[in-house]
């Protein structure tokens, strides 16, 4: 009994990981001169259940800080739209009423794009899974009955979501959506857009592992991103170079609901179980939104279907680490090498 209650509690907690708004965010900013007339300005802020960092290389720290500040403002605005846990958010209104006329264009746009991924993935990516997730939370002991699950699945299916301009409709009563698997990427891209509008072209944005890069870092070298090892043993099984692109990772190694570590936060709604082939999936794509959505999609599809799926998408590649630690990569994944240990600086 205690165990099932624990599962329910963790599920409830998990629901709040994705997109909570931080009431009193503090911004930590540092500016470091890294060369003649060149400054690395980095700012970090808790948001979206994680720490969001923006690092820029710019000739003027003031310009960079101004751009980052504007970008964080935009981030806050968008988080307020996409958070399911804010009662006054647009998505909450949509979920409550089953339709939303005059939706913020960003919400309608992301829903529309999520439907494209739903189609592309033949249903593997489905934002209408929210009722199933909510069911896990609401069920006594964290284990819904078969009947409850069947009922929940009746209202799942992104084909029942329609977007027409700024109007979003659900086909059936009881439908709800979550955009946590795509909106964070969208917001990262929005941050990048603000930086570019302020002519801060060299930057790296990291929202808890959803990363978007533009331009280059000091020395005109591409940014280097490491892939977290699922075992979190301090090593990185691979690194990649990114100049203009994005990478995101979905993994089963962050949150487990059970002590046997079999059920994690990516749940197959048809079985009530988690896909068990992949330990983590990292996807590179031209945009963070694409990388965000596709990493989840490939995780659900598994290596056999997921790798060909990604290989069919231009500008996209993937690295899968399975539960035995084996790596599988799409043909175009450009590895920059593993990092097996920390190298201490000369301090």
């Amino acid at each position, binding site marked *: 009994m205690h165990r099932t209650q624990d599962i329910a*509690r*963790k599920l*409830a*907690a998990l629901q*709040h*990981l994705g997109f909570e708004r931080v009431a009193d965010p503090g911004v*930590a900013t540092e500016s470091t*001169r890294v060369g*003649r*007339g*060149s400054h690395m300005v*980095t700012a970090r802020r808790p948001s979206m*259940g994680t720490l969001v960092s923006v690092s820029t290389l710019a000739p003027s720290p003031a310009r960079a800080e101004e751009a980052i500040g504007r970008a964080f403002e935009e981030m806050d605005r968008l988080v307020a739209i996409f958070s399911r846990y804010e009662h006054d958010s647009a998505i909450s209104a949509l979920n409550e009423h089953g339709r939303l006329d005059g939706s913020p264009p960003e919400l309608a746009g992301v829903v*529309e*794009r999520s439907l*494209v991924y*739903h189609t592309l993935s033949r*249903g593997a990516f*489905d934002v209408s899974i929210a009722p199933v997730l909510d069911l896990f939370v609401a069920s006594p002991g964290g284990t819904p009955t078969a009947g409850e699950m069947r009922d929940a699945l009746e209202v799942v299916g992104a*084909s029942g*979501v*329609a977007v027409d301009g700024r109007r979003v409709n659900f*086909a059936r009563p009881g439908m709800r959506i979550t955009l946590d*698997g795509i909106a*964070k990427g969208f917001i990262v891209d929005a941050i990048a857009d603000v930086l570019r509008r302020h002519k801060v072209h060299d930057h*790296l944005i990291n929202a*808890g*592992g*959803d990363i978007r890069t*533009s*331009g280059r*870092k*000091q*020395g*005109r070298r591409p*940014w280097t*991103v*490491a*892939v*977290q090892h699922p075992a979190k043993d301090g090593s990185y099984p691979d690194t990649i170079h990114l*100049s*203009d692109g994005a990478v995101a*990772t*979905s*993994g089963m190694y*962050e949150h487990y609901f059970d002590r046997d570590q079999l059920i994690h*936060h*990516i749940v197959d709604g048809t079985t009530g179980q988690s896909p068990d082939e992949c330990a983590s999936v990292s996807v590179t794509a031209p945009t963070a939104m694409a990388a965000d959505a596709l990493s*989840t999609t490939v*995780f*659900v599809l598994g290596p056999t279907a997921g790798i060909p799926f990604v*290989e*069919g998408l*231009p*500008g996209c590649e993937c690295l899968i680490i399975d539960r035995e630690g084996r790596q599988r990569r799409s043909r*175009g994944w450009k590895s920059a090498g593993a990092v097996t240990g*920390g190298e*201490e*600086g000369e*301090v």
Partner: protein
Amino acid sequence: MTDEHTKPKKQAQPEDVPGASGGWETSRRGMLKALVSLPFVGAFAYNYLRKRAADDTKKRAILEELGVTEGPAFIPEAISKPPSERVRLGIIGFGGEGESLIRHAGFAHPDWVEEQRKSAAENPANKALEVYLSQEDLNVAITAVCDVFDVRADRGIAASQVDVRPGGGGANPPAKRYRHYADLLQSGDVDAVIIATPDHWHSLMTTAAVAEGVHVYCEKCLTRTEEEARAVYDAVKPSDIVFQLGHQNRQSEAHNKARDVIDANILGPITLVEGTTNRNTPWGAWVWDIHEQGNPQTIDWDLFQGPAPNKVPFNLERFFRWRCWYDYGTGLSGDLLSHEYDGVNQILQVGIPKSCVASGGLYYFKDGRDVPDVFQAVYEYPDRELTFVYSATLANGNYRGLAFMGHDATMRVSGSLTVTADSDSTRYKKKIEDGVIDTSRAMFTYRPGFKGIDAVTSATEEYFVSRGLLYTYRGGRRVSAYHLLIGEWLDVIRNGGETSCNIDRAFEEAITCHMATRSFKEGRKVTWDPTRRRIV
């Protein structure tokens, strides 16, 4: 973050999706609109639906069509002008530390260059030479060298004219050797000087440099005694020279991140900080090599002793292992407690403590030294409601690190940084109960030591994310902390501003260390009188 799930029974064939049931489902027109309005996604869809088995060539073609390239898309703006003036640099004390500092200023000894070149050929993982050559050219010239040991002075002169230099700079004229530091400072050959001698000389050399208007980079500990610290402070503070104490931790990324953690109040009220030193080798206990050419003919012993309180006959151990005697330094206080304290002061800005009690003994290295090899000091900061404990042994290697203990979490800082929630935290009580925060694991980690990695991609983690911060050393480039510290000093000399470890921070550190030394030697609790600026 909530991910999606798969539902094979509802997986739609592409042609099944649009227009199946009127306005409730995504229409074909809506789909096309979506594709048209989303260039990347539209391209994905087009490619996937029509040619699922697209090869790499096709993908590249589409990428080009979309204007997405894998190469650089941005040309940085023009580089500003280089530092306008070449700084003429002198070095006093070209021992191990002095040679290291000069190398990080861009002047490696030719033997070191050759050793590293051979080492890199045998082991590509050795990047020391690469890092050296990638350093920023600080636009300095080593014009003067002072050392009482002929061999080391000659090495300094050789380093000053090395032709393998960062930025491709050619060889400079050889530095001039001065036997006495006063001659070097008065020569007019130097704008700035690095002092890397034993501690007992720091005060006289620094105050003399101030008198000559020469900027000073002085290795820690600032001085050997409290009185000397006051003299240095009183000389430097009102002067126009730029002073930097040699604390490379000031440039540590982990320390900088630790300040972020403190600023965000992630730890809650911090009541106890523990700094530690654990070493278990003779080298770590200052049993350093005695140079085979060291003898009364090559070493000016009288000049070495100088202001040392006890004069003794020529002694190679004392010359090469000077940290083992109070005549020349302050043992663990000045050498290693100073590092820990500087980290604490950098992160918390605690200043000089109210009181100190220290104890310890010489329990293991009974080789004639008179400084303890086990040493503990307890500092009180009642105004901050904080205790700082320093605990050290040179006879055990159990690494304990530097820990900041708050009501809500503990932060450990070393080369990396971790924050672990406290199981009885008030702030995280709900999240701990909900399982969001696992108190058996760090909820925040930062590892700056992974060379060249700017970020880590990972599924979203716990509340505060364990990584996800940039792993840049400086702009993604590994740069030595020494180099940064010297570079900062030179930058302030040229452009004004404040060094990160200026005379105020140096004085705070020196007094803090001397409080521990006094307490240990006198076997009593000592306090700081801020009005009289005295340890009492």
